[in-house]
């Protein structure tokens, strides 16, 4: 049976791993390759590396990092951040990434999803959606959660599904960094609506939250950062717990 996936996310700035709380207040948490290798050895099913560097030089550093990750790590990994053109996708895949995650670029130009799917295949195209629940609706945000758009989460997710996205990485901005659990209701609605896997992101604080994302939220994978980076949750222990809870997990 296909296993539910546990995915540590590593935010990278100038070659170093960082993680913010509610997208601000960054803290240092280790060397990206070493950290990724450690997670892989602990049983992480995939890794996500997000480049949060804005500068051109930072981009170059990140591409080199992707190459080092590919050489050293034997599980699949996704890269995201600053991917705006097909050339960026090509560069990341050529450096050894298995998938790319796109966010703002897709909202600005939705055809970008079709183009990636056509040229490289749907399986490499992860569409990340940052959304916030306000006044009874889920609105999508761009630029790392700084700018609100008029797009509704569910309409947008359905659209990118149809355009050829391979997976949706949904981050609830209401839940991110708060550690009170994932946005399970919205996740379940996405899972029922879409024909592609949904990755839950934002809100993990304890083991039960992962279980709930898989059961209540019907998510195919759950992503987290700080609980792993700071050792609040150990991946081997988490996976044993989930297995005992009856969830199909790779041990």
């Amino acid at each position: 049976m296909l296993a539910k996936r546990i995915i540590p996310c590593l935010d990278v700035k100038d070659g170093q791993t960082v993680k913010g709380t509610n997208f601000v207040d960054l803290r240092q948490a280790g060397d990206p390759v070493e950290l990724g290798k450690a997670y892989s050895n602990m049983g992480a099913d995939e890794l996500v590396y997000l480049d949060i560097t804005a500068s051109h030089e930072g981009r170059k550093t990140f591409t080199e990092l992707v190459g080092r990750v590919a050489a050293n790590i034997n599980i699949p990994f996704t890269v995201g951040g600053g991917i705006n053109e097909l050339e960026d996708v090509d560069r990341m895949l050529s450096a050894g990434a298995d998938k790319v995650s796109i966010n703002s670029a897709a909202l600005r130009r939705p055809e970008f999803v079709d183009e990636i799917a056509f040229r490289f295949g749907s399986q490499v195209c992860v569409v990340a959606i940052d959304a916030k629940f306000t006044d009874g609706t889920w609105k999508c945000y761009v630029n790392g959660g700084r700018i609100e758009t008029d797009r509704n989460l569910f309409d947008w997710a359905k659209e990118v599904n149809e355009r050829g996205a391979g997976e949706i990485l949904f981050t609830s901005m209401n839940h991110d960094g708060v550690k009170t659990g994932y946005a399970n209701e919205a996740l379940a609605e996405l899972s029922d609506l879409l024909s592609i896997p949904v990755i839950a992101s934002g809100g993990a604080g304890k083991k039960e939250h992962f279980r709930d994302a898989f059961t209540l939220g019907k998510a195919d994978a759950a992503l987290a950062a700080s609980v792993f980076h700071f050792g609040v949750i150990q991946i081997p222990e988490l996976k044993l717990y989930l297995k005992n809870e009856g969830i199909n997990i790779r041990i």
Partner: protein
Amino acid sequence: MQVAIVKYNAGNIFSVVHALNRLGINPIITDDAEQFSKADKILFPGQGHALTTMTYIREHQLDRVIRELKQPVLGICVGQQLMCSHSEEGDVDCLGIFDVDVKKFNPTRHTDKVPHMGWNSLTHMKGDLYKGLPDESFVYFVHSFYVPVCQWTVAESAYIQPFSASLQKDNFYATQFHPEKSGSIGEQILKNFLDL
């Protein structure tokens, strides 16, 4: 040991190169029959579309070269599919090493998403490739087409229905999953292949 990787128009062979490097092997990437004859082992990896890859392989006369290889050959992902008789992906005749046809997954429930992507477990494992591996070992898959269980099946997995996770006939080995992305289990499978 000399290891050659078949050069054709399929994507993502870098991860296979990296995986071999981690095992201390520096493979050559070639489409030259002369080079193949010098290699101890040959890998035929790749992601891509069956029709476009088969067209390329025929145009470059690689079909005959691959079929006539005598040393151990390992097809990975699309590599496994291309080693079969025919594929529904582009309705194309393939290399015909394994006398079985490649089918498209047909989801029966909403939760059965295609492509089949992620970690799934192996059962009914037999033969040299799976030496020392426990039943229910998890490996990483990404595919929309599958090879049904047949007389050449040496490992099964199940998604929508049971299918061939791996095939073997004489010196030809194949995996639908990506050993190069399957953690320590995948590494063991590659090692087992190199030890043949």
